[in-house]
């Protein structure tokens, strides 16, 4: 099997010839630029400025040389605009991380370094708008700044507030997706995940809109969470609007990429916390499920793609609904959260949901364990998670900036060794 066939088998719940691996294909299975730079060095790869594909979390582009060493089977079809709303014109600008890691951002980005060493960026590179994100003098990523003015609860205007938040895909973007999907499909053997997004209903990382110049309305995360109960009509109106845009964009996207992608990444809304779900099952079913269902139904009625969502945390109470609403693949499978037991997940939902992630605990083991502990944990989890297919290996969420290169390598190398041991050595 080649990589694409391997992933296709896994996401169709068939056992592939080895456990497939994702390294850096999405905005939640990636690696911070600082960790990436050190990993390249550790593996003896040439030093180079790291291209950034997600600015706020400072995720680095994984180049082909590294992708091969990590044996990733998946590649992402990424948005031509970064998370600050700046398009990739091919021109880049150097950005130095506080720890010295050299990176390249889309040239349209604008930032300031304050006297205390903090770095601030402007939305869409527009210096006339208020700065929307901040990186500390020793930080690894940007923090989003709350900018929305107070809202008037007696006069809520959801469509007006979110009118610059959603947009219909431009012809230019569609053309980019068409060409890029052809390139990835024809020139590589990787499985392709289309990082479309657009159905992240109520995503805490998106609501404050660091890419918008002047966000308005209910945008602070706790206001938003409370609004779900206090002003459900507001939230519903935003979700309705979002669904309308998403369905339009799906059609344009489908016309552009056809069946060259195998998976579509639609949502990164977190429904779980460390100790339990963010919300009751009732609220999820009322407020979220119907909109997700419309999006997933469209995908299944019109394409061969599998639907993929990312949600952290303890979500066992919501997984029936998540499977039921048409989600095929769930990431990051946070086994360190309460009740998220690998065996239980496989037993109860393994035939309906593909688990993508879960490979190593990124809250304790990966950052503070020894390489041996990391490898041992991966090796222990693999047989449980990969039983019957329906599994793609990744760490739990992005690899954060200060993670030791030897631990990252230990995690991925443990999968290589497991695969060699169980399925025979591969070239």
């Amino acid at each position, binding site marked *: 099997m080649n990589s694409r066939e391997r992933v296709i088998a896994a996401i169709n719940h068939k056992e592939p010839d080895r456990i497939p691996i994702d390294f850096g294909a999405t905005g939640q299975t990636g690696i911070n630029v600082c960790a990436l730079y050190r990993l390249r060095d550790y593996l003896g790869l040439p030093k180079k400025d790291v291209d950034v594909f997600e600015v706020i979390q400072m995720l680095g582009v994984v180049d082909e040389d590294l992708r091969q060493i990590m044996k990733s089977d998946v590649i992402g079809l990424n948005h031509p605009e970064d998370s600050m709303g700046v398009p990739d014109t091919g021109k880049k600008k150097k950005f130095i991380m506080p720890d010295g890691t050299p990176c390249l951002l889309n040239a349209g980005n604008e930032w300031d370094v304050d006297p205390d060493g903090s770095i601030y960026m402007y939305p869409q590179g527009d210096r006339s708008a208020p700065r929307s994100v901040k990186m500390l003098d020793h930080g690894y990523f940007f923090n989003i700044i709350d900018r929305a003015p107070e809202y008037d609860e007696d006069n809520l205007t959801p469509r007006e507030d979110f009118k610059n938040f959603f947009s219909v895909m431009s012809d230019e973007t569609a053309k980019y997706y068409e060409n890029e999907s052809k390139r990835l499909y024809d020139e590589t053997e990787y499985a392709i995940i289309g990082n479309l997004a657009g159905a992240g209903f109520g995503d805490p990382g998106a609501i404050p809109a660091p890419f918008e110049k002047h966000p308005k309305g209910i945008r602070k995360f706790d206001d938003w969470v409370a609004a779900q*109960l206090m002003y459900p009509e507001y939230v519903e109106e935003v979700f309705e609007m979002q669904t309308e845009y998403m369905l339009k964009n799906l059609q344009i996207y489908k016309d552009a990429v056809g069946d060259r992608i195998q998976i579509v990444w639609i949502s990164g809304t977190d429904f779980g916390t460390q100790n339990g779900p963010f919300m009751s099952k009732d609220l999820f079913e009322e407020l979220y499920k119907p909109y997700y269902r419309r999006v997933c139904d469209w995908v299944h009625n019109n394409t061969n793609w599998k639907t993929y969502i990312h949600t952290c945390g303890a979500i066992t109470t919501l997984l029936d609904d998540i499977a039921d609403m048409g989600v095929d693949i769930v990431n990051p499978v946070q086994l360190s959260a309460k009740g998220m037991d690998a065996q239980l997940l496989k037993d109860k939902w393994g035939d309906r949901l593909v688990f993508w992630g879960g490979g190593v605990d990124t809250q304790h083991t990966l950052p503070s364990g020894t390489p041996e502990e990391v490898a041992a944990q991966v090796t222990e989890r693999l047989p449980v998670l990969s039983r019957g297919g329906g599994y793609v290996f990744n760490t739990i969420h992005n690899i954060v900036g200060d993670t030791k290169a030897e631990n990252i390598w230990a995690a991925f190398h443990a999968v290589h060794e497991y695969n060699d041991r169980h399925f025979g050595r591969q070239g």
Partner: protein
Amino acid sequence: MSEILEEISSLLQKGRAPKVKAAVQQALDQGIPASTILQDGLLAGMDVVGAKFKNNEVFVPEVLVAARAMNKGVEVLRPYLVSDGVEEKGVAVIGTVKGDMHDIGKNLVRMMLEGKGLRVIDLGVDVAPETFVDAARENGAQLVCCSALLTTTMPEMKNVVDAVNASELKGRVKIMVGGAPITQEYADEIGADCYTPDAATAAEAALHLCEQMSA
């Protein structure tokens, strides 16, 4: 207990802010002392919400709206509490440590502490160690509460402990820590005084610490 106080508690649990406000006013009109309304109406309601949250019977949205309703009620009571000379049960400063912007957990802890009758000064997110110390000094706080959700920002908690110990507040304030990656072991290692895994337990522990310190 009087009917109106039960009513306040139950409205608060449902997050019905305007109704809580009206009911608190009604209780005042009936001549019930402000401190009783606070304790047996508002705080009693918040206690129930905290316990249910801990048991995963209600979730973050319900706690947030209940806390907003509590605040509306407290607003009505405040002038009476002040003129009656009702004392707060303790003072805490709280914030999410430097470099971290996760604030939902911190906000819930603040609300639950307020739900126990403590005065809480919320320093927001991305809070430097000196800011914790300065705020604790200015407000005469007994507790410094730090929240961190990231393994990359957890070490900031140690810096807060060190900053407190380097100041004259050493031994006069207690440091509480929490957030998803924090464990009892970690709290011990950095010399924090108290760790709890959830907001309801945090509030009980905070009250207990304040009582101990004033005893």
